[in-house]
């Protein structure tokens, strides 16, 4: 079974919610990315979104822009990225989703990169600027390789579009907590609960919420409504700090444990 699907089956049995951290591959370094991923798993992360950098990340806030730049400056390319995946995979069965923009993957050759990613141990893809309507070919590639193709749904997504997304999506549906770019925020969108409930009711797939989630309280609020939470910038921000890696790891472990704890309660 695909590791993403298996993760949600296991969580359902345990009546727990998914914690899905996003980190930028190659930040602060290549080997360090592997260590951080393994630490996150040890702290209770269920699925990893591993950011593949793009020079022009138009849906990202300042923190993830900076992280992508840092990764590229560090020389992160396709091989280095897949090495990180292999590094994680030698020690862990943590499901890994490639989170990126269309162009780098397109330029590398979508089918070819997907095949190499699968061989390295990747379980799914999420490409921010590939809407469902432009995804037919890659959809087929992913199906053939037993990779999950994850789509975003937004507060602006109409019911008609939502139906289409739900028909095409696999793995899980990623619901954006509010319109905007990635980054930490204090609150959710107006009518957030109502909208999320509607999405959840319409979806056979697990629904997780991300964009702007940075505190255990927000994670808890989201878990009450859906199947899990994605946290990105709140973790990535810390990986950009200039401090000894041992200290960074310790800090990240603490932050992750606090964020993960609500997801591992028993949710009816």
């Amino acid at each position, binding site marked *: 079974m695909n590791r993403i699907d298996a993760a949600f089956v296991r969580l359902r049995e345990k009546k727990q919610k998914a914690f899905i951290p996003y980190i930028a591959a190659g930040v602060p370094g290549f080997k360090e990315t592997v260590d951080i991923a393994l630490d996150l798993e040890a702290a209770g992360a269920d699925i990893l979104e591993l950011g593949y*950098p*793009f*020079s*022009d*990340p*138009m*849906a*990202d*806030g300042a923190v993830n*822009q900076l992280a992508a*730049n840092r990764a*590229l*400056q560090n020389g992160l*390319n*396709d091989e280095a990225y897949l090495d990180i995946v292999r590094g994680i995979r030698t020690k862990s069965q943590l499901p890994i989703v490639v989170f990126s923009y*269309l*162009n*780098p*993957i*397109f*330029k*590398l050759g979508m089918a070819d990169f997907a095949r190499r990613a699968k061989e390295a141990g990747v379980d799914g893809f999420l490409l*921010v*600027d*590939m*809407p469902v*309507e*432009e995804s037919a070919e890659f959809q087929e590639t992913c199906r053939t390789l037993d990779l999950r193709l994850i*789509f*975003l*749904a*937004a*507060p*602006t*997504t*109409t019911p008609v*579009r939502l139906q289409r*997304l739900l028909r095409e999506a696999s793995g899980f549906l990623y619901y*954006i907590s509010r*319109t*905007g*770019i990635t980054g930490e925020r204090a609150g959710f969108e107006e009518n957030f609960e109502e909208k999320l409930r509607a999405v959840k009711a319409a979806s056979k797939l697990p629904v997780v919420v991300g964009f702007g989630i940075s505190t255990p309280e927000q994670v808890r609020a989201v878990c009450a409504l859906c199947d899990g939470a994605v946290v990105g910038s709140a973790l990535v921000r810390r990986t950009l700090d200039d401090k000894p890696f041992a200290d960074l790891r310790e800090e990240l472990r603490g932050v992750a444990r606090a964020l993960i704890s609500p997801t591992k309660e028993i949710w009816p």
Partner: protein
Amino acid sequence: MNPHQLPDEWGRFGPYGGKYAPEVLMPALEELEGFYNQVQGDAAFHQELDGLLRDFVGRPSPLYFAERLTELCRGAKVYLKREDLNHTGAHKINNSVGQVLIARRMGKKRIIAETGAGQHGVATATAAARFGMECVIYMGRVDMERQAPNVHRMKLLGAEVVPVDSGSMTLKDAINEAIRDWVTHIRDTHYVFGSVLGPHPYPKIVRDFQKIIGIETETQMQEKEKRLPDVLVACVGGGSNAMGLFYNFLDKPSVRLVGVEAGGEGIATGRHAARFEGGTLGILHGTRSYVLQTPQGQIAETHSISAGLDYPSVGPEHAFYRDQKRIEFASITDLEALNAFHTLCRLEGIIPALESSHAVAHALKLAPTLPKETLLVINLSGRGDKDLQTVLDTMTPESGSPGQQAVPKTTGAVKR
């Protein structure tokens, strides 16, 4: 191939174009397309637009016989389509007025736009001021410095100009930042895209608002010469002035169409913005086209002395008609553009934008090779007041002529 049936319903020009946008934007793009299709058959909309183009913009812009340029070339008869004489000094206002009218019908309160040379920013700030709408313009820090007069104009018109410090701090980064604003304020904001770029329906909308350039050119040439022009030359950044001039002639095979890209310091140096010479197929800012990028698919740093041509991708419709061999492309270096700038100043008493100077420079190469009955039209897409500092920086006080080195620009992280 009937050019008037493109793009298809999904925004494709053959393998180019499309609608590659984050999910948050998709409903807004559908809404925009819906309103745009609606106003097609709306006589009141067209009456209002035509009135504004006539009395506010100053259309039709003249088709001017450049007598001394023609004498210099000793070849084709050279005409200038004077888009520089439009209100705000460039062709950009044609599109800005049209899109702001649509935004009003959509009930949007807020207008945002990107700008490179500042001409699209000024045009959009102008249209927003005219209709009392809030306006925010994103502009790369490097472009704000080299096009300072336009920054002042936008502010005088009541727009907020937001400096963009990411990436190469030029047009592409301004677009990134405008998109970030749009996904955040999607409900009350319309993004006035300035070129034949971006996700569908923008390349079509911008082209349709600019095609008046070519339609007027045909009528005016018929009046003056009783026939069609033979050669049309226009600079191509995103490609809106070129597509505006060419579109009406795509199905008239006797008319040769020539687009001119920015050759920067020379193609061999790697410091240029000639997508058709150094680019490969890619997806940037919502559309599939030629992109200057690394083998890893990271967007490359571009260079041009003209901010408006300094962009790593090109309109998908241009890419399609290049494949069809209907539009041919050439490139002109910074230095050639500067020389053409001075030539036009001195021979015709017209100070052209550095963007348009690329078209002039290529026409100066082309015209001498053509028979004297050939009718050549240069799209003089904008005026050069905004470029004075850039040009003066390349001149020595004594000679008053351009120096050997165009102004170097140092930017960004990604090397090609």
